[in-house]
């Protein structure tokens, strides 16, 4: 049986015989890494600067981060404004309309009535 010294010589020879991946494999792996990489975001330090508030903590920033950041907040605001506009315009259903017999059957919604009243008041 080979003794410890002999076995160490085998280990030393095997350590020196290093298998190295070829460049094509490294290229594939790096390309896959880039493909799976999160989108760039502003780089921040690894720790908070002295005197600065806790980064990414609670409050508005924490809430903002929780819902997906500024893009999602922008979408929510847009959707809210769209809903407000729809609510103020003529989506009140049939009951919200008035029939104007004197105007050849025109249908008026609540917003139109308000606009008409304002116009008449203005005149």
């Amino acid at each position, binding site marked *: 049986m*080979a003794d410890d010294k*002999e076995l160490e010589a*085998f280990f030393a020879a*095997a*350590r020196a015989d290093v298998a190295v*991946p070829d460049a094509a494999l490294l290229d594939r792996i*790096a390309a896959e*890494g880039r493909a799976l990489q999160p989108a760039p*975001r502003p780089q921040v330090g690894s720790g908070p600067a002295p005197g600065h508030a806790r980064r990414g903590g609670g409050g508005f920033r924490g809430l903002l981060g929780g819902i997906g950041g500024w893009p999602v907040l922008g979408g929510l605001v847009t959707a809210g404004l769209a809903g407000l506009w729809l609510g103020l315009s003529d989506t009140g259903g049939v009951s919200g309309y008035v029939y104007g017999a004197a105007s050849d059957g025109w249908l008026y919604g609540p917003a139109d009535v308000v606009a008409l009243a304002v116009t008449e008041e203005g005149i």
Partner: protein
Amino acid sequence: MAQQDGQVGVGSAGEEIAPAGATGESAEDALLRLYAAGDSAAARQLTDRLAPLAYRVAHRMLGDTAEAEDIAQEAMLRLWRAAPGWQPGGARISTWLYRVATNLATDRLRRRRPGTLDDAPEVADGRPGAVAALIEADRAKALNAALLLLPERQRQAVVLRHLEGLANPEIAEIMEVGVEAVESLTARGRRALQAALSGRRAELGYEES
């Protein structure tokens, strides 16, 4: 491959990556943080640092280039996916990658039939002109062939201890066992290697030394 912690790197935006230990964050942790932040150069730098580790240890455990390539790619894929949720200050990235790569290699070994000495590559013959360098190369081949005869866990422990040069506590972390279990696995692995290699002493030049 020597461990590369402690080297200083530079991100694509010119940000210097602090040496390991200076901030408690290793250079690889810093690169992974840059990667998760979308740094365009970080994927390449992480690949150059870490993929050879996964490839090399898989090659040592399996003795097969194509399988080692598959494992290196799969291990790095898992790293890319883990990057956004990586917790700095936890396991070292290299330790984590050793665990992933050796576990993938072990899975493949379990699907193989047991090897025999007949599967081992032939060493160079002893014709005139065979020199010490060839003997040294043959020793490496013989050791690698003998490694393939070991049970998977012994092989994993011996590769990590004697070829990768890791300390027993780190091997215990990689293999998710206690340090005593690592010592037992490496001791049994060494004995099995000695027995397997003893029949090759003459052809490997030990008769002359």
